[in-house]
């Protein structure tokens, strides 16, 4: 059975420490984000930790939510690309082919999670950092869209090793850089189609799961687990879309097993 790579992100465990962001930057040769880049809103972060406030002052709480690419099953970014640079792999990954991309940026326009990034400039590293670039990941030139790939180089490597050893990929053979770096194991990566994997078990058993913007019907592969709040805010002051009441839908929409 084909893999369907997925991720669960437990917001109850997330401390907003940004270790995943740093790990991702290092793993995937992401250009250095300067302050200017951030201010111009051109920073590239394949996974980013968004902080938002819930409730009205003074009853206000800070929340964190790490946002990688959702790897939608019906990704809106795919049919709009004129050159198939944004496409669906047979493993259910929503994938970006850099060398095919011409930079129309339509995919970013039609991505509602804002996880597709454009290289506005040619990426540059100081000489001292050039040796730390990951040789397994292509460095993207300017004018190209890029986004989280669920560390496809690791997936490919794991699959190839398994194939050379004559077996299937096991849960835990590998994980993405963000999941690997997460100190609280809030991010868990695995195969949703493998009923024995940790993510599949979590998705099947949780009562806290929800997907971001699930109402668009794209069926994201990233499932968030709602924060367990000891001292919850009154219902009406909650953010309508982040603290989703749609968690029951997850079981219908995420194919398990």
């Amino acid at each position: 059975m084909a893999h369907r790579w997925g991720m669960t992100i437990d917001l109850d465990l997330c401390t907003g420490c940004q270790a995943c962001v740093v790990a991702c930057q290092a793993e995937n040769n992401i250009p250095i984000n300067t302050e200017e880049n951030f201010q111009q809103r051109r920073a590239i972060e394949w996974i980013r930790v968004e902080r938002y406030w819930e409730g009205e002052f003074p009853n206000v709480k800070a929340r964190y939510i790490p946002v990688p690419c959702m790897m939608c099953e019906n990704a809106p970014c795919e049919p709009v690309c004129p050159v198939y640079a944004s496409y669906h792999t047979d493993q259910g990954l929503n994938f970006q082919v850099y060398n095919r991309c011409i930079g129309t940026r339509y995919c970013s326009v039609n991505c509602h999670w804002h996880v597709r990034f454009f290289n506005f400039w040619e990426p540059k590293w100081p000489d001292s950092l050039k040796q730390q670039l990951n040789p397994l990941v292509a460095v993207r030139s300017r004018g190209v869209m890029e986004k989280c790939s669920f560390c496809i180089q690791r997936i490919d490597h794991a699959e190839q090793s398994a194939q050379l050893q004559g077996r299937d990929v096991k849960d835990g053979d590998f994980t993405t850089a963000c999941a690997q770096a997460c100190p609280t194991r809030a991010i868990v990566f695995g195969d949703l189609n493998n009923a024995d994997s940790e993510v599949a078990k979590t998705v099947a058993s949780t009562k806290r799961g929800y997907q971001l913007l699930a109402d668009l019907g794209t069926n994201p592969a990233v499932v968030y687990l709602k924060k367990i709040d000891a001292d919850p805010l009154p219902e009406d002051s909650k953010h309508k879309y982040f603290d989703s009441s749609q968690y029951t839908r997850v079981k219908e929409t995420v194919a398990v097993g």
Partner: protein
Amino acid sequence: MATVTGGHHVPEPSPVTRAWDYTPGQLVRDGLQRLRAKGQWYRISLIILAILTVIGIIALIVQAIASGWGDRENWGYVAVAFGYIMSTVAAAPCVCVAGRLTRAHWRRPIDRISEIWAAAMIVPAILFLLLMWTVPNTHGRPTIWFGWWAAPYLWDAILVLGLAFTGYALLYVSSIPDLAIARAQIEDGSANWLTRKAEGFFGTQSQWRVIERAVAYLGAFYVVMYIGTMTVIAADFIMSLIPGYKSAIFPAYFAISGFGGGVAVVVVTASIMRLWGGAEDYLGREQFFALAKIQLALGLLFAYFIWTDFVIPWYGRMPWEILQIRLLYFDSYLWYFVAAFALCFISPLVLLMWTKLRRGRVGPFIVSSGVLIGLLADRIRLFSSAFSDKDITEDRLHALPPVLHPGVLDWLIVIGAIAACIALVMLAMRLIPVPSIWEMTEGTRLRARRRFHNVEVTIIGKPDY
């Protein structure tokens, strides 16, 4: 075949409308003749229509008593009747406005045929008043009224009744000169009560100017009112009753398909007038050719608008959008949609594309009859999907609502309403000459044959008023 410098070849003037060569006296005699003499078939068909109308009214009363006002789905086919009449009968007068606005000469015999349908506007107005109680108030449902006072009832009523009133006013004003002719010419006491209304019209220059202006402005106002009314009906009677159906093109589609129905009504009426109404000298190839061109254009627009209504949710792929197109196009009303699409778009396109058919008299008639049937299917598709049982306060469609197929009672209501309209128009033809005498007279004056180099061509005057 000869050419005029510039390359456009001018065909021999075809035997278009013989009435262009009539003298004014002939035109008047002819018009009054048609006003007086109505044959046996006229009486028989009027009686049949009256019976159908009465049956329809009885069916409506039975329906109302049996099901009451509470359940919207029982009124689905009353709504269909209303929507169908609004998009055919009520649209017919717009045809004459289009002709007048572009100062097209072919319009002259057609004008009255299209205006006379305004006589039936009382039928949709009554149906609307019945239906108003089935439409929920704006609370908790999508609406374009944004909390206006007494919305939607008051404003819908103003629009529909205002449209009916404008229609009657347009018909009356544009027939004043003819009524005045009838008043002056009929001396044997058979002049009807309406002619007496034209007492004060003597054809002075200022009176003509007033009439011309009034016809032009009332006509333009009628079209604007019509589009407004159709927009509001589309919003309040259809879109807001299907949760999550938010297609901004839909009101425009509703109006455009209505125009198609209006042209079809005019073509069919003109064909009947030509065959049995004694107007064959007036309605030549020229008229059918022009009307068929409009019918073709509106058929293309029908497809274009329905395509845009369809393709956006198709690309959106959100769950409720998928349900919406399944409801309207695929699952529930597939065959109604197919019928509408085939008859309102494919048949006009495939048949009227050929100049031969367009220029003939049979082609446009067949296509237009098809359009009228197709529109009925389309209105069933729209109104019954809107009036079927579901919770309209939901923000989105979560499941396909049940299908409302018509029962015997439903058909009787629909047929009765249509019969009432036709009967009213036939009665109106007793009172008002069809085609219009004064417009034809004007037309004969503004036309001439002239030699141009070595061919004879038709010259048309375009007064610059």
